[in-house]
């Protein structure tokens, strides 16, 4: 099980277990970048540990619904994420939580009212191994630095009208290190990597929308109403379409939809703000 708990695991240590769970994740300094979407993954994984422990490692949540994700500040290799999640409800069907990731006490990303549907843990992973990992990260923590970054996952742009819409195809890799961790018994393309690609595609539309002033640039600041409606297996492909939904003053909203044939498999609304370029 090479890569298990290292290729796509983003909680090194749980400092306070329970419904107001706290944890830490040290971003390895040797990687080239750490997308903010992975800070969201870290928050979700922290909440998932509480959910799995509460259900005695019989159930685990998977990515589902994220009504609000605030993208506050970029994070960098070498930084330590301070993770906090408040479990709002937890039962055999779903976990609901809000969470924040901070660096040096300053929030870098916030999640509000996220919902993760529960699935049978044993269908996705070895419950005993997961339980042992939980005990490790609750008692001293895992050795940080195992994550080696994510491989480039390209979007193939297939068309669109400048500043209005863009379409693309996402080819989920047939093999990637993260599948060994997400998940060993049933590899699934992580929802947060999906989110990362959604941001990239939305950014492509925004780049061609004129900014209100010359010295400004569009910056993705919020993801609203994000939902994943299907698992994405290795080797699959999805058709994406991003379109400008609304532009008002210094804000614009780009709606992104992913389809597999006629079925909508995921959607999000990305809110950009016109900000001074750093």
């Amino acid at each position: 099980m090479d890569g298990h708990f290292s290729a796509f695991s983003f909680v090194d240590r749980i400092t306070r277990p329970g419904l107001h769970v706290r944890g830490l994740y040290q971003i390895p300094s040797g990687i080239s970048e750490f997308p903010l979407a992975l800070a969201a993954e870290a928050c979700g994984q922290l909440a998932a540990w509480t959910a799995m422990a509460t259900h005695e490692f019989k159930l685990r949540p998977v990515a589902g619904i994220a009504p609000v994700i605030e993208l506050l500040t970029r994070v960098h290799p070498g930084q330590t994420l301070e993770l906090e999640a408040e479990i709002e409800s937890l039962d055999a069907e779903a976990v609901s939580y809000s969470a924040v990731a901070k660096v040096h006490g300053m929030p870098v990303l916030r999640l509000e009212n996220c919902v993760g549907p529960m699935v049978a843990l044993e269908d996705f992973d070895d419950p005993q191994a997961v339980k042992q990992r939980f005990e490790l990260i609750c008692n001293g923590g895992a050795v940080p630095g195992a994550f080696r970054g994510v491989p480039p996952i390209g979007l193939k742009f297939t068309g669109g009208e400048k500043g209005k819409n863009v379409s693309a195809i996402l080819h989920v890799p047939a093999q990637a290190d993260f599948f060994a961790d997400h998940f060993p018994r049933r590899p699934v393309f992580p929802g947060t990597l999906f989110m990362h690609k959604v941001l990239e595609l939305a950014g492509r539309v925004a780049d061609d929308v004129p900014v209100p002033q010359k010295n400004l640039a569009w910056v993705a600041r919020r993801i609203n109403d994000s939902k994943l409606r299907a698992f994405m297996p290795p080797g699959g492909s999805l058709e994406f379409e991003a379109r400008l939904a609304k532009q008002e003053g210094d804000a614009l909203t780009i709606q992104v939809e992913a389809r597999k044939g006629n079925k909508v498999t995921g959607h999000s609304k990305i809110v950009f703000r016109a900000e001074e370029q750093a």
Partner: protein
Amino acid sequence: MSNENITQEDIAAILPKVAEIIADALGCDVEEVKPNASLINDLGAESIDFLDIIFRLERGFKVKIPRGKIVEQARGSLSEAEFETAGVVSDAGVARLKEYLSEVPADRFKTPMKSAEIPKLFTAETFCKLVIRQQRAGAAGAGPA
């Protein structure tokens, strides 16, 4: 379980907000959310969407909705064995469903009906009634189910 006490006026009072919540969850126009449209058959909802709708209703109406227990509520006093056998709803079960889901047109209750097909019956009005029941339970001090 007092469906019978839920009037059309009660439903009409919250339907606009419920329809808006359903439309937001399904990414459709609110005009498409007709009171007795099947959320699955007519609006393409899936199980994750029901979860989404329930959580949005909870936040929107400040109630706690018993997730995964709609069918259990519908079953009422019938035992699981009386309600269904091998995934197929019994005649008594279908009769109970018709009573509980009185907003659903009678011709949508198939015979035989598989338990897994019950969510196909759910409409916007079904969720209105769900909210009203929980509001009443909360007001009566019974707390969430």
